[in-house]
């Protein structure tokens, strides 16, 4: 079933996938829907692979969906709150004994304008929700659009998406924006979601917890569901800062208000931090010294990033790392680290070799042999032939060589010359 001879890994344009005589599309309907160009359909193995790889795109659909849900929730809360306020406004007016008529009219008028305002907000909110729903749909469309004809372009976009994801995770926002803009894939990446995180991260890096706390409030119920203690950690840090500034009285008041509620579930940690009251910020005692270090803020940033990713259904590690690790391991053989490793192999590059060092080697259950001359597989259709000196080349390569040289073969690696009739066929399963 072999057909492509030297397709580039990313599959260049359709021109490289010609002549698939042995692999027909799966069903008659498949043949029809395969569309116009079809002599150059991809083999079914490539299509199965494509389908498998699409299953990896959970994050692609989940993130805009989470964002959408969040907007819906927030909008609904506003409507509820306002309508509630109007109802209680009416109740208040109805119950108030000494309400003058003018006051009653004023009160009712204010309620009416509140409702008018709400209606406007609702329209605006509805537009935002609609846009976000459209983004979700656009991504579904994109997944469905992947097919044989646009495969290499689709893969290029995927590669870019993976890189944009990396830039956003590392907070390289300008690079992310430029990269997304270069192929107009802004709808396929979540820059806006990460911008939300940017505010919190930058504040934490400037030792401010306010935006982070606001974020916790915004996502209160979901954080509670996942039993997150992030808010607690933020409060602890604020407490430490008060102790650092030697504001012990304020620190204690703060602790009573904000830390005590967490005591039930996190008593040990609470006690440990409370003990810092007894020390100064330049203490040498190791247990408590560490709590005063600036590194704690970096830790908070990391914690936030984790909570954030979890909330949006994103992997904790960048997609780039995940895919790259998989690729390196799948490609890694001891031969990659030899000097004569072909430059086509990414592991011929120093940087890749370095990254692949701690990763496991790939495994084969069956021999896979590559002809030194043609770089093609030597299999039953193109069996390996052995020269008198033990060097092996493919039938295709040696036949061609013999044809051009009066039946003589010259081993490209040792220089040995022999006759084509002298080579032996090797049987390798």
């Amino acid at each position, binding site marked *: 079933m*072999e057909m492509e001879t030297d*397709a580039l*890994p990313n599959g260049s*344009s359709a*021109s490289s996938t010609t002549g698939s005589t042995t692999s027909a599309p799966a*069903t008659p309907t498949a043949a029809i829907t395969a569309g116009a160009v079809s002599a150059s359909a991809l083999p079914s193995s490539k299509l199965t692979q494509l*389908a498998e*790889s*699409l*299953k990896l*795109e*959970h994050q692609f659909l989940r993130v805009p969906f989470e964002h959408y849900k969040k907007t819906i929730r927030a909008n609904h809360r506003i409507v509820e709150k306002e*309508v509630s306020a*109007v*109802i209680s406004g*009416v109740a208040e007016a109805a119950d108030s004994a000494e309400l*003058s008529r003018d006051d009653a009219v004023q009160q*009712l008028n204010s309620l009416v304008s509140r*409702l008018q305002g*709400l209606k406007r907000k*609702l329209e605006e909110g509805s537009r935002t*929700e609609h846009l976000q729903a459209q983004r*979700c749909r656009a991504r579904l469309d994109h997944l*469905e659009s992947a097919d044989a004809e646009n495969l290499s372009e689709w*893969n290029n976009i*995927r590669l870019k998406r*993976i*890189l944009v994801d990396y830039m956003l995770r590392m907070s390289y*926002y300008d*690079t992310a924006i*430029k990269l997304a803009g270069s192929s107009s894939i802004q709808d396929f990446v979540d820059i806006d979601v990460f911008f939300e995180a940017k505010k919190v991260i930058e504040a934490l890096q400037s030792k401010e917890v306010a935006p982070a706390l606001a974020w916790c409030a915004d996502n209160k119920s979901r954080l509670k569901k996942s039993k997150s203690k992030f808010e607690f950690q933020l409060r602890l840090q604020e407490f430490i800062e008060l102790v650092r500034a030697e504001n012990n009285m304020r620190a204690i008041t703060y602790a009573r208000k904000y830390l005590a509620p967490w005591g039930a579930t996190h008593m040990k940690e609470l006690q440990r931090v409370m003990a810092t009251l007894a020390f100064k910020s330049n203490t040498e005692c190791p247990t408590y010294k560490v709590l005063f270090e600036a590194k704690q803020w970096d830790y908070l940033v990391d914690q936030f990033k984790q909570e954030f990713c979890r909330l949006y*259904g994103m*992997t904790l*590690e960048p997609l780039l790392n*995940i895919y*790259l690790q*998989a*690729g390196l391991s*799948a490609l890694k*053989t001891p*031969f*990659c680290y030899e000097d004569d*490793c072909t*430059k086509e192999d*990414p592991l*011929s590059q120093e*940087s890749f070799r*370095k*990254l692949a060092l*701690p990763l*496991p080697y790939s*495994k*084969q259950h*069956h021999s896979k*042999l590559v002809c030194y001359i043609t770089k093609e*597989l030597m299999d039953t259709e193109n069996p390996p032939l052995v020269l008198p000196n033990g060097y*092996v080349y493919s039938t295709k390569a040696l036949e061609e060589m013999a044809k051009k040289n009066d039946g003589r073969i010259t081993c490209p690696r040792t220089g040995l010359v022999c006759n084509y009739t002298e080579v032996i066929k*090797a*049987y*390798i399963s």
Partner: protein
Amino acid sequence: MSTSSLEMPLSSLRDAFDRVGKKQKLSISKSQEVIDQVRHEVEQALVDIQSDHVATWALVDIQSDDVATSPIDQRSILDELRNKLNMIAPLNQLEGSQKELNLSLNKYQKVLDKTLNPDISKAYRNVDFDPHTLHQIILNHFYREGLFDVADSLIQEAGEPEAISLRLKFVELHEILEAMKLRNLEPALQWVSENFEQLKECGLFLKLKLHKLQFVEILQKRCQADALDYAKTYLAPLASVHMDEIQKLMGCLLWVGKLDSSPYSELVDPSNWEKMTEEITEQFCSFLGQSSPSPLSVALAAGIEGLPTLLKLATVMAAKKQEWLAMKQLPVPVELGKEFQYHSIFVCPVSREQGSEENPPMLLPCGHVLCKHSIHKLSKNSTRSFKCPYCPQDASVTQCRQLFF
């Protein structure tokens, strides 16, 4: 039908999302309806209060300035308003439609989790993935793709050292490619001459192909005379080595203006330019000691192909996390496309061991191949002759020859 195994599930995903869209619209219109209802009642009450005032105007107390409704009437209007609102139960209505919306949202989430893999990080190993090395790799990729300003931005934001010489090289490549887009082969030819020594055989072939392409272009776009001039200057010197080719090209001169219906129609196929662009790019990258789709592209493509298998493996080994992290070799093969096979891997059919320097593949006289260790075992440490496990022809250790793939 491209994503045949995924089309069904994707369409059920789409259906679930369509339902969400419907419920969301309903929810919005319900909210609007509720707001309108409440507003209507409040406005009605307002009217009542104010009209009540008109009706009782006649009863006004001349002595006081206070032109009030009788407090009891106002009270009862407000009470009635409150009761009406209770009956409408706006909050309940809102809750109702929101509940339905939430149900459809949850349903979509479930379908999503079922159709696509919710956690692709299961196979990830927390090893040191040095960011600087990674950034070098990414920069190389950006240069290769001609995304120079993106690269510059990364250098700045990540604080990476500049890679000036690499950048220059790829700037050169993209200048060549840009020119080729405009059917100008000057820069390409110049590059070939500059690096002629190192290109060796390849250089000559490239020169020929480039000149051929340019010749045909001139013939089509300009005139016979120009083409002839070009041929005299550039093709003649190559004639000694590539006589056949040159003769063919000269034949083209007879079909000026009708080349696409001539026996030489393939020469004017526009895909020749695409192919040439690809070839130049490959040569150029090879010169820089790397593959033509950037090494990052290749590695990621391999990763995308291989990750599903690794995820399955990680799931199976979920309970043995230590083993997973400590393994030196994957326990199962990760099948990749042929294009990722860069090395010959010999696997002994008997021992399933991979060939190596200490354990090379050996050819038996019958033509079957086993690894050295297996042969030693079968021959009881080279003492006896043995039968090949496959054919069963007799063989002795001395008859076996080492193979070099």
